[in-house]
Structures are given as C-alpha cells and as structure tokens.
C-alpha cells in the first residue's frame, strides 16, 4: 500500500515548486495517500503485452510548412501580459542566483 510520509510530501512539493505550511504537509500527506491507495487498484490489472495509449486520434507526425505567419497578437501585446518590468522588449525576472 502506498503511504506518503510527511517527508515524501515535502519532497514532492519542492519538485512542484510549492511551499507547504506544516499543517498543510499533514493534510496533504493524508489526502494524497488516500488517492494513491485508491488508484492502487490498477496494479491488479493484467497488462502483459498491452501497448500503452498516449493519444487516440490516430494522427502521427502532423507537419506544417515552415513559414512566417501573421498572428492576432503582437509581441508588444504579449509582453504587456507580464506582471514583471519590461526592459528592451525583455521581461526582467528575479535573479536566478539570488540578489
């Protein structure tokens, strides 16, 4: 039976870039464990020789010509959606190396 410890939940949250308060760690480890125990049922299905399904359209290798096309949105429109400062048509983010 899958059982997520508080440390497991802290690790998953870190991978997912989420901060959890201590009481949230408790709450989520209970909830996520109950979900994982519920989906455990899948382990009982015999899938030997069964191919996985990733998509159902039957389409494969959909190509288009590599041509420049006009779009509704301009670069300026898209930049204006950012909540961060725009400097010379670039978004200024917090530093990756700390300030």
């Amino acid at each position: 039976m899958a059982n997520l410890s508080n440390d497991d939940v802290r690790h998953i949250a870190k991978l997912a870039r989420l901060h959890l308060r201590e009481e949230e760690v408790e709450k989520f480890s209970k909830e996520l464990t109950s979900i994982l125990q519920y989906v455990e049922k899948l382990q009982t299905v015999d899938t030997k020789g069964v191919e996985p399904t990733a998509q159902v359209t039957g389409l494969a290798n959909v190509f288009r010509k590599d041509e420049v096309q006009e779009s509704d949105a301009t670069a300026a429109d898209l930049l204006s959606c950012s909540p961060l400062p725009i400097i010379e048509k670039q978004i200024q983010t917090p530093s990756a190396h700390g300030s």
Partner: protein
Amino acid sequence: MVPNTLTIAEAHEQLKSKKISSAELVQACIDRIEKMDGTLNAVVCRNFERALEEAKKIDTKGEFTHPLTGIPYLTKDVFCEKGVPATACSNVLRRKDYVPAFDSTTTKRLKAAGALSLGKTNTDEFTMGASTETSCYGVTRCPWDTKRVAGGSSGGSAAATAADECLFALGTDTGGSIRQPANFCGCTGLRVTYGRTSRYGVMSMASSLDTIGPICKSIEDIAIVLETIAGRDPLDATTSDVPVPNYRQALSGGMKSMKLGMPKEYFIKGMHRDTEAAVRDTTKVFESAGATVEEISLPHTEYAVPTYYIICPSEVSSNMARYDGIRYGHTTGDAKDLIDYYHKVRTEGFGNEVKRRIMIGTYALSAGYYDAYYRQAQKVRTLIKRDFDEAFKRVDAIIAPVSPTPAFTVGAHENDPVAMYLEDVFSVSQAMAGIPALSVPCGFSKEDLPIGLQIMGPQWQEERILKIAYAYEQATKWHERKPKL
C-alpha cells in the same frame, strides 16, 4: 415568449422574420443575468457593452444567414477572447487580470458566424472538479435547487443555459465536465470525439483528454453550434481532417432497426433509485421508435476512475508548470531569487485541488514510479478503449446514466477528494477512449431534480448519437421543462 428563453433555432427564425432584434435578445439575456446571477453565481465576467454594440451592428445590417448570427452566448472562463479577462477561476490569473491578446479558435469561429459573447462563466479552478466548488469565485448553484451544486467543472455554463441567461454556452469536457453539469441542470451537453474541435486558445488541463463542446437547450441547437466550431485547425495539431458533416440534416431519419447497448457496469450499488429508473425507462421510448436495447458489458469500467486520476494529474502537473508568474498572472514582490519567486507565485496562486493534482502527477511521473503509475495507467487506458471497440461491433450506440445521482448539496464532498472523484465514475471512460458522448434530459427525481441520459457512439460518430438523442427528445420533451426561479 421572453426572447432569452428561446432555443437558437427558434430565435434564428424570429430574427430572420424581424419579430425580434438581436439587441433585444442580448438585452433580455443581460436582464436575466442581472436578476438571477446574484443567486446562481454562474457568470464571472460580464462583457455586456461590447455584445450590445455588436448586436446593434448586426441589426443594422439585417442579414441573418447563419443560424448563430445575432445569438448571445457565454463562454467558460478558460477560453481566451482578445481583450476580455480570462482567469480559469484561479487566483494565479485573477490577481493580476490576465487579458489575452488573441482569440481561441472556437470563439473566433463563433464570432465569424455572428454569435455574440456576453462574458465568462464559472468553473472549477482550471476545470479541476465536479461541482465548481474549487472556483476562486465560489460555487455556482443549481437552478433547480439552489442548495445544490450545478455540477462541474462547466457548472457556470450549464446553470446559465438552464436559467436562460444565454441561448447557449461553451464548456470543456476532460472527464465529464460538460455532460455532468448538463445532467445536473437539465440541459443538453456534448463531449465531442477528441480532435473534433480545436483546443487552441483554451487553457489546458489534461491535454490527451481535453475537448471543447456546447451546452444547449436542445439537440438541434447542439448540432448548430457543433457544425460551426468543428473541424481541423492548423493551430491545434491534434484536430482531425475527418470531414464535418451537416449535423442538422442528420437529426431526422429516426432510429428504426438501430441497436443500443446498456452496459451492466453502469448500474451500481449506491446510485440514486430515480436515476436508475429514469435511465432504464428510456428503453421503452427507444423500442417504440423501432430500436432494440440489449445488455452489454464494458468489463474495465471499474478501473476508469483510478486510470483517470493518474493520467489526468500527470498531465496537469506538466500543464500547470507554465504558471510561473513571468509571462502572465500573479506576481509577488519579495522573492529572494527566481526559485523562491516560482514557489511564492504558485503557492499563493493555486488552490488546494490544483495543488493536489500537481503533486499526485509529480509523484506519478517521478523517477522510479513512472512505470508503476503512469505507464500502467496508459495500458489500462488501452483496455478501456478496447471494451468500447468490442461493444461497437455489436451495437450502434451505448446508453447509460451520466452520473450516479442528481445534483448533490453544496459541501457534500468537502474534505474527501476521493468521494468527489467518484462523481466521475460514468463519465471518464469515454474520455479514455476518445469517443463522443452526450447528456440529454430523461426525467426528474422525486426532489424535482433533472436526470440525464448519456448516449455514446464510436469515434467521429457525433451524427449518430445526435440522431438518437433527437429522436428521444422529440418523443419525450423533457428538455422543455424549466426551473422555477
């Protein structure tokens, strides 16, 4: 008749014969929203002025060649419309109003036909839920009993359509999000074959399962909207070039010698007695129309929900990665570096259900667990799809309930995510298989709550299930009943 209560087909006739104007139609919907929406909470963004302006232009022109010209509708708040705020009912986009710079293909096609967008409807946050209770704007209430939920995730679209706040609405269906709220609110709703409609410009939840479709007041209206929005879109490479038929033409013709299957796995312990009775009763209507109904088996049905709750969160964890507070959405002032910024934006922006799915998905896709969870789920998905392939060798279409009970009360599944997931027990298999399925009203419970019948067909066979639903609807007229509000 009050104009906002009309179906699209009826309103089109009246517009064409100049009995009403598009501006009157739009105004009637606006008045209805202003009167009712304080109670229902179905509409989260109002774009009334623009709709009225466009309606007046259409009236001046006076040409109503397309059945959607001058028809007002509402869109689930995950569709992008240029210049109109889009929030997915999430604080990650709401706190700094995200205003898209482009239109979704679907709303663009509707606009080209002359349909008028009145605004946005409530949904579970990023469509993750079965009750609209995870919306940052609060729950949408069922027009038939406001102590109950409208369903979800397209609960706002279904409640607004049922309450005549619009003539039709757009929704998305990943694991039942159109069919279940349509069922709870007494509307008709269609989940299309995956790839039949374009997902471009609609916020993704689970990309291998997401579909775009209409919620309407009649099957004929579903056909009208579908033939307008369906078809290949170069901007969504998963759309197919299978030709789009004239769905309205396909409606008549009846059901003589059609074979319908009723899967025994869709009648389970704990389901509402009235739901079971109403769905079983539909057999009589089909048989008197010349069809036969036989019991069939879809043996992997019990694995559908667990399969869905691996595949869906896995794709969610990937899709939600884009909400990083850089290109759009919520921001925060006091991050010490970029990683801290990501953490803060996402922690403040996402609600609990989104966080749960991101974490389940992150876990299921992580090294050492991928084969046991995601890959195994994809294999079971194959088996679920095969069940349908086998069934459709024997029968033309499958009929079943949409969900085990009518609308549940607000808060009924608080603190129990698995109980909420089980609401999807009859509506996720079709998503796994990528087949079309719709919900059409088939009766009422003792509490006077709507009950829907689900009709499923083979891939690309929307025509067939619409024809069956139309024959049923015309024989019973359940769809004409309106909530007393």
